């Protein structure tokens, strides 16, 4: 088990390293000069050159990369053009507004987490629950309604569903405030009221996919020999489904859920844009538009970190669910 975990961690670190190198190189492939964007007026060639030197943009690329990575682990001194001394998880300073990237993240990361995690709980409960019930009542009215609904929602777009919900609940019925982020600890009720539309929008679309997936998984599992064995032992129907079939059917769903949650944490760009909430996703898009290297690098790395961590969690869950994995 320890070896299993170590292997996964090693793999995770190498993935993150590769992501950091690739995104660093890709930024330099962009056809724009970050420095031009930084001084809108009175820029002469000499000044630009001085800023470039201060930012280290004239250093060889490998040196720049090493300095950047060094900043993350031990901190670095960025010189007077930027904020000066930058403490250990140093992600640099935004080229656009000179805010420390770590500060930006402290602001926008909780927003995205608070959108995605409750939404994930909602979509998993709704999707898996609906899928299981449809599978057990295959061919019933409920099953057919659920298939129809999930097909409809799976084919809709986030911004469409989001816009309709906004129109109904915020602008027509006026029972919800304009979506915003209020920290849970500050006011739990406003926290929920401000984010509920984002959760529901995400949950409707994702649960449609999960309902179809878990229905198919469950139907497949129900035809497995070990389910027949359980029935042959005289196990009550409820336990045949709950204890024997569900446990086997849930495994692939765990995998996909882990990846989906990991990816969603990297930024729910469309949801955040639809509801006008400033989270990680919107921050990333704006940074790309403005050529803000430190922010881009940080968003890419953090998103990759989420996916990698989600993968490790999935692997651990897998080992917990399936004893055959533990040996590997």
């Amino acid at each position: 088990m320890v070896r299993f975990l170590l292997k996964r961690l090693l793999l995770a670190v190498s993935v993150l390293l590769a992501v950091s190198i690739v995104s660093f190189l890709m930024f330099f492939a962009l056809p724009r000069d970050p420095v031009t964007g930084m001084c809108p007026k009175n820029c002469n060639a000499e000044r630009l050159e001085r800023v470039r030197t201060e930012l280290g943009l004239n250093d060889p690329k490998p040196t720049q990369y090493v300095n950047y990575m060094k900043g993350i682990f031990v901190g670095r001194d960025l010189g007077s053009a930027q904020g000066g001394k930058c403490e250990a998880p140093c992600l640099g300073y935004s080229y656009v507004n000179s805010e420390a990237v770590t500060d930006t993240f402290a602001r926008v990361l909780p927003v995205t987490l608070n959108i995605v995690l409750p939404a994930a709980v909602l979509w998993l409960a709704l999707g898996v629950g609906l899928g299981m019930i449809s599978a057990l009542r295959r061919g019933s009215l409920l099953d057919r309604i659920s298939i129809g609904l999930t097909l409809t929602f799976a084919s809709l777009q986030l911004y469409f569903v989001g816009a309709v919900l906004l129109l109904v609940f915020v602008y027509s019925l006026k029972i919800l405030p304009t979506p915003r982020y209020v920290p849970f600890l500050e006011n739990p009720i406003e926290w929920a009221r401000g984010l509920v539309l984002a959760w529901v929008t995400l949950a409707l679309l994702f649960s449609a996919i999960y309902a179809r997936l878990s229905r198919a998984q469950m139907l497949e599992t129900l035809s497995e020999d070990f389910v027949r064995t359980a029935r042959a032992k005289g196990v009550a129907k409820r336990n045949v489904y709950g204890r024997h079939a569900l446990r086997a059917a849930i495994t692939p769903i765990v995998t996909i859920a882990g990846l989906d949650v990991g990816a969603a944490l990297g930024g729910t760009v469309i949801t955040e844009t639809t509801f006008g909430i400033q989270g990680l996703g919107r921050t990333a898009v704006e940074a790309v538009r403005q050529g803000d290297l430190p922010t881009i690098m940080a968003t890419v790395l953090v998103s990759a970190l989420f996916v990698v961590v989600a993968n490790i969690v999935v692997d651990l869950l897998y080992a917990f669910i399936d004893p055959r994995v533990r040996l590997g």
Partner: protein
Amino acid sequence: MGRSEAVPSGEPDRPEVPEQRSGDGPYLQVRELRVRFDTEDGVVRAVDGVSFAVERGRTLGIVGESGSGKSVTSLAILGLHNAKRTTISGEISVGGRQLVGLREEEIRRLRGRDMAMIFQDPLSALHPYYSVGRQIAEAYRVHHPRAGRREARSRAVDMLGRVGIPQPAKRFDQYPHEFSGGMRQRAMIAMALVNDPDLLIADEPTTALDVTVQAQILDLLADLQEEFRSAIILITHDLGVVSQVADDVLVMYAGRAVEHGSVERVLRAPQHPYTWGLLSSVPSLHGDADADLVPIPGNPPSLINLPSGCAFHPRCRWADVNGDRSRIEVPELREAGQAGHLVACHLSAADRERIYRDEVAQVGVAR
């Protein structure tokens, strides 16, 4: 049609169960069992009027190719078919209780307690995520709701030991994938026997195992039968297995019984051309090693569209002996020479004897 008169008149059309000596009658009694599935392609007549009986302490071998209805019969006895798409008629009586038409919950209470089943492939029949011991303990606790975890565990360990698994207490916590094929099947047997059932159905219990292990498993079943005195149905396509462990044989073809009798009679003096075919396609240890194996030509028929008359006639070399009769008339199961030996064939007793002696046994097949 004259030749059919060789069959003694006055014999009952309904197949009679071979006579038993003991007093209270057979533990399992199946009469005119019919199992039909409604599918999109039509109605599948998987079992079409099969009757047999098994006493405690005796073993009935049910033999036939895939699709002959042997597994469907056993699943019907345990009530494991999907009730929505299956129609079952006839009688299934287990220990005096009539099972056809019983509510699912009532059958469930009998399953695993009074009647248990061993499946063909123990790897897929055991749950991959639960330890072997836990699965056996579960089978016990389902029918002993007041038994605690510890009691169920010690019962399961005891059963693992009894089926010949070394270090049963340690093996209890291992998972199916950590067992070898033979050990897995032993564990399946332990699970089936944990509630001391009076009826045990083994559906091809040795097919997925290699040959040396097969013999061990069959010996184990025979030993355990002596100990537990259960009635056993052994479903197989392997007549060798039948000759080793069964007392009686039922040969099925396309959902019907074509031959039924004691093992000695059916294997020594087989009466049905299909049984001849089965025997000729099995290599014999005692016979001529150079003798060719003769496969039965053709394939089992579709159960949605059965051939007219005798379902075996398209594959039977002797279908024309009685003119068109085999093509038109479904043969009844009748007494064939000796009490308790039944056959469903239009050939006259004299013809069957002559053909078997001159054409079939010649090939060096009969044991």
